[in-house]
């Protein structure tokens, strides 16, 4: 029976639409993955020496002290990002397969998740270093096994928590409070948890305890799922109460208003878009890294332009670059309704422009760091409106990954949302203004650099009609391919 399941999984993976990208993108992605593996490996190996050098004490004890936060952070990441195994169960329900084995398989599948395996990059090299450094083998191994069990316990806890929001947020609130308390030295929770983790090392036999815990979590998840394996219970999709909204104040903008209304609803009522917009708000604070002088490498004025573009362009980058994809689930309607391509594109353009404007106003607090900081934001905004708004729309014509508006868990990690193509398209949007500024500043001085970048933006604005005609042409050319790509739901 398991053989069948595994074969299904194999096919699901290799036949997914997003897997079929061009070969050189695959190579790039492989290089990227390799890079991260190396980084994590060196972190695992290096952790011991870093802690030793910084004089915090015995590296193992230090790790044990913070292990509780590590585990909590892991649980948090899982909750936000890890996909639940229930999604593919539906077609199996009525087949002659026992419920127990379906549940076992779905849960078993999560064990192989990236969220579990990634920890090996830290724990394995760290333990190896401990062994080399002459720590007693039995103790290190028992400690290692205990940690392994705890990570997997998190895996199953997450499955349980995911179904009950009530548990999750209070838990996070309590832990955040504990963290703050520790930071200010009011109360140190690690004083109570560290001895527990130390125990796994000091008394090897106690490593059995986390394994018992793991067993309990597994059993809990298993019986929960088995009990709730009905379409209207555990497998039901959550429904929200619909509310008809008018936004009549947008009517004065004619057809543009119609689209804007729709886009506001799109953003408000779908998980995925809500997350994206929240992310774009975070971009506003990105400039703090540059303007507070927190990082020395970012002191150079060229980086100010870089920051300015990101601060005002958060929405442009996070929402704008997926422009036609937001409408992917009803693209045929948009293509056959009484909508001229030009109107559709210009409504999206206006949305981006308005959001850039709002971000720029919100970013006024950068004035606190001097007028030059805010000037960089303003110049960035002009460039974003004048040039980058076209570039994202243009790039959007080639990004043909359909977006599932209702699921949030893919907003960051999924390759569907974050592909190398979108990354590559970001480069000209960022490098060009840096180059322009650098040229201006090099030959004529800092202020001239700012003016030059702004001028390029204004120039782009002047060519709006022309550029739109070109983008429209590209969209029309790509239309059929886009429609076809959106048809394959990921």
């Amino acid at each position: 029976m398991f053989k069948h399941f595994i074969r299904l999984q194999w096919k699901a993976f290799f036949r997914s639409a997003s897997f079929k990208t061009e070969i050189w993108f695959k190579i790039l992605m492989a290089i990227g993955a390799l890079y991260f593996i190396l980084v994590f490996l060196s972190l695992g190996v290096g952790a011991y020496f870093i802690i030793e050098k910084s004089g915090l004490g015995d590296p193992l004890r230090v790790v044990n002290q913070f292990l509780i936060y590590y585990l909590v952070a892991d649980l948090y990441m899982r909750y936000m990002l890890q996909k639940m195994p229930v999604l593919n169960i539906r077609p199996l329900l009525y087949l002659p397969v026992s419920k127990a084995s379906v549940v076992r398989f779905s849960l078993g599948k999560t064990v192989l998740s990236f969220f579990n395996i990634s920890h090996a990059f830290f724990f394995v090299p760290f333990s190896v270093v401990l062994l080399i450094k002459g720590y007693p083998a039995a103790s290190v191994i028992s400690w290692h096994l205990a940690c392994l069990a705890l990570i997997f316990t998190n895996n199953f806890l997450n499955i349980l928590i995911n179904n009950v929001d009530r548990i999750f947020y209070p838990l996070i609130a309590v832990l955040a409070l504990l963290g703050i308390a520790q930071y200010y030295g009011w109360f140190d929770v690690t004083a109570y948890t560290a001895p527990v983790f130390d125990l796994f090392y000091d008394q090897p036999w106690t490593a059995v305890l986390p394994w018992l815990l793991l067993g309990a979590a597994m059993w809990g998840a298993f019986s929960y799922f088995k009990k709730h394996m009905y379409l209207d219970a555990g497998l039901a999709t959550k429904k929200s109460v619909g509310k008809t909204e008018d936004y009549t104040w947008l009517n004065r903008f004619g057809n543009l208003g119609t689209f804007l209304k729709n886009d506001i609803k799109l953003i408000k009522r779908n998980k995925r878009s809500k997350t994206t917009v929240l992310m774009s708000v975070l971009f506003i604070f990105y400039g703090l890294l540059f303007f507070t002088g927190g990082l020395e490498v970012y002191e150079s004025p060229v980086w100010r332009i870089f920051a300015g573009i990101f601060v005002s362009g958060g929405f442009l980058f996070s929402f704008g670059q997926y422009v036609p994809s937001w409408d992917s689930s009803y693209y045929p309607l948009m293509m056959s309704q009484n909508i001229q391509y030009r109107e559709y594109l210009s409504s999206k353009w206006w949305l981006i422009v308005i959001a850039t404007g709002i971000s720029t106003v919100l970013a006024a607090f950068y004035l606190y760091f001097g007028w030059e900081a805010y000037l960089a934001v303003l110049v960035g905004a002009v460039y974003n409106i004048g040039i980058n708004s076209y570039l994202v729309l243009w790039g959007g014509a080639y990004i043909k990954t359909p977006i599932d508006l209702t699921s949030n868990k893919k907003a960051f990690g999924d390759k569907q949302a974050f592909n190398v193509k979108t990354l590559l398209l970001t480069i000209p949007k960022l490098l060009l203004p840096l180059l322009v500024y650098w040229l201006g500043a090099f030959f004529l001085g800092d202020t001239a650099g700012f003016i030059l970048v702004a001028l390029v933006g204004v120039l782009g604005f002047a060519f709006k009609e022309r550029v739109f005609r070109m983008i429209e042409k590209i969209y029309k050319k790509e239309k059929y391919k886009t429609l076809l790509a959106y048809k394959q739901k990921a």
Partner: protein
Amino acid sequence: MIHAENLTKKYGSQTVLDIESLEIPKGQSFGLVGNNGAGKTTLFSLLLDLIEPTTGSITSNGVPVRNSEAWKPFTSAFIDETFLIGYLTPEEYFYFIGELRGQSRADVDALLSGFTDFFHGEILGQKKYLRDLSKGNQKKVGIVATFIGSPEVVILDEPFANLDPTTQIRLKKIIRELAAQREVTVLVSSHDLIHVTEVCQRIVVLEKGKIVRDIETTPETLQELELFFAGETP
């Protein structure tokens, strides 16, 4: 109204549609029948410029659909659920389509009031988004939305599928009334021979992408079609 010439669509070596010539006059109610894979949806998608023909062209009211967007104002269609916007309530969806077609809110409300029976109290004022409606109710919304803004060409792909018997009967009445208006050309596809023969003045049978029958509907049509699909006529 609609004219197709040398229209073919091929995927690789497989021909899914091959129509030498097809003329649909204005005001006709046109039925398209055929088995799965006969090319019904392909033809409709070509009409709406959603896919590219391999050869040939379609004009709608003199407008070549591939080169101009001028056919959009007088054409409306419901092919499948990709014509619905899942995160809108039915009302919002109707108003959205209405605004795109230059209809005021009052116009849309007036039109909708004529469909109270058809909606059977399950569509309006339900506090549900379209994505949470049942398949049948989604279909009702999609079909009614095509009537907004008095289009001259209405294209409905499999409108009877997924509907309950009462709604099917009501829909037939609606389509017949629509077709009775001289200026509206209605294109309907279906697997259900009884429904199309009741609703359409002309029926075209597609088989493997080719037109194999093109009949004016008469009382004998149903029988003729049944014999054809039973494989008893050459």
